[in-house]
């Protein structure tokens, strides 16, 4: 964990509720795909955990949806403002497990953390397929960003207004060497029950501290109690015991 004061370089909307914020000042931090940062926002007591979309050189990219006070406040922040940030939080994805043809499954704001993952995997010569699921055409973001990286991209929308109609599980190929999934719990559970393949899930939970001190975000796994913020947020499929 590191604490840094990051400066907002840009903050733009990608659609009605999703924003992309770029911050500078991460130089010296070792950020892995699947990790998150924890932001101290003025007037709010607890920090706000946001998954890392990309970290390159001195620049950190966060893509977030406005779901409450904190993210709403973030969406109104301006270039040049500074945010006290805790970095290098969580375990991140296991890139060594990817195999030749990894499959990336993202739903809604579960898509952003897969971006840095796709980038890393493609750089190491993997053939990446990314299935990005949204509710409707106007929700779709980052399709071109994934294509530009060189990933094979399939977009699904629940209402069929863009791409393949249905959920990410409806577009899943028969086989993949390994999958990485991030999205809302119903999507993760659908993936969990549909595939026999090996993979990892990135989970979300309300957090107190985000660095392992408060036990606010604990879950029960096959290997005992784990903190989503510390031993997670990424868990191997075999560690999760989801019956519902």
């Amino acid at each position, binding site marked *: 964990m590191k604490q840094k004061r990051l400066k907002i370089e840009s903050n733009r909307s990608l659609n009605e509720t999703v924003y992309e914020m770029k911050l500078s000042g991460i130089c010296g931090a070792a950020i892995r795909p699947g990790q998150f940062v924890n932001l101290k926002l003025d007037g709010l*007591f607890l920090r706000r955990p946001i998954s890392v979309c990309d970290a390159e050189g001195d620049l950190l990219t966060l893509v977030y949806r406005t779901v409450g006070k904190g993210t709403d406040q973030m969406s109104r922040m301006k270039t040049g403002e500074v945010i006290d940030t805790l970095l290098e939080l969580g375990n991140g994805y296991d890139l060594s497990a990817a195999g030749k043809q990894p499959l990336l499954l993202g739903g809604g704001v579960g898509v952003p953390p897969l971006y840095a993952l796709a980038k890393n995997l493609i750089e190491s010569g993997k053939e990446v397929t990314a299935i990005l699921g949204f509710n409707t055409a106007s929700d779709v973001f980052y399709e071109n960003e994934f294509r530009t990286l060189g990933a094979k991209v399939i977009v699904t929308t629940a209402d069929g207004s863009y791409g393949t109609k249905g959920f990410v599980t409806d577009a899943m190929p028969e086989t993949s060497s390994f999958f990485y999934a991030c999205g809302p719990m119903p999507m993760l559970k659908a993936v969990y029950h549909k595939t026999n393949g090996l993979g990892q899930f990135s989970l979300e939970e309300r957090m*107190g501290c985000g*660095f392992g*001190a408060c*036990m606010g*975000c604990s*879950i029960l796994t096959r290997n005992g*109690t784990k903190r989503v913020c510390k031993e997670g947020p990424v868990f191997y499929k075999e560690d999760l015991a989801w019956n519902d």
Partner: protein
Amino acid sequence: MERLTTELCGITLDNPVIPASGTFGYGYEFAELYDINLLGTFSFKGTTRDPRFGNPTPRIAECPGGMLNAVGLQNPGVEKVIREELPKLKKVFHKPVMANISGFSVEDYVETASRLDQQEQVGWLEINISCPNVHGGGMSFGTDPAQAYEVIHAVKANTQKPLIAKLSPNVTDIAAIARSCEKAGADAISLINTILGMRIDLNRRRPLLANQTGGLSGPAVFPVAVRMVYQTAKAVSIPVIGMGGITTAEDVIEMMMAGAVAVEVGAANLVDPYACKTIIEQLPEVMDRYHIDSLRDIIGIAGKE
């Protein structure tokens, strides 16, 4: 620095700042950031006889000036704490540590406390009779003077180390509970634990926390804590450790003027992992500003004639 030292049940602390139980784990996360030996001591995660997962999530909610938690005493159980956590802790923390203990019956408390009493690293036993987030134990012992007496008396009879009774603010007469603990043999009192609270999710129209209620902490509770520390320090002759919403060196001084010999810092650690280090570093300068030579000079000064 001599002017920051304070005395807690015969053990001298380099300074009065003690991270509170449940906000500092076993210290490892913080030891990655700074040398935690600069703390007075710290109170490690509340320990019970058996391992506990705690409550379902969500366990955390926010409010203006603070937060609610309903963790529910998640811990690996006393044997695993002794076998795994204490040896690991020994590598990063070299001062006597405070063992925080919870239970669901008098026997639970006695068993857990007597196991931890035998550990060399442990300097004090902090008996939590004030957890608001478990049912059929915890706070129910700390809201009735007779039950508080029973637990503290039984633990005292079976342990050697200084005993600190950690009290709940969810009572009408804190002085009566504190006196009862003193009579039962407590060597010190610590307070306040969290204040029982609740939030409701407007979208779901249901309590936000899975446990429905949770304990309020953070700056929002600070004035309540100062008042109760003041009342308790007046009611008993044993030392009082003040806690509840402390975030700055000024807060430490205020709490000590109310009657605390030392302070515990809780929620602040979760927001700023350097909170305790910063407070300790800022104490001398803030003391200068208020013409305080030594912290020992101001303990309880607000209540003196």
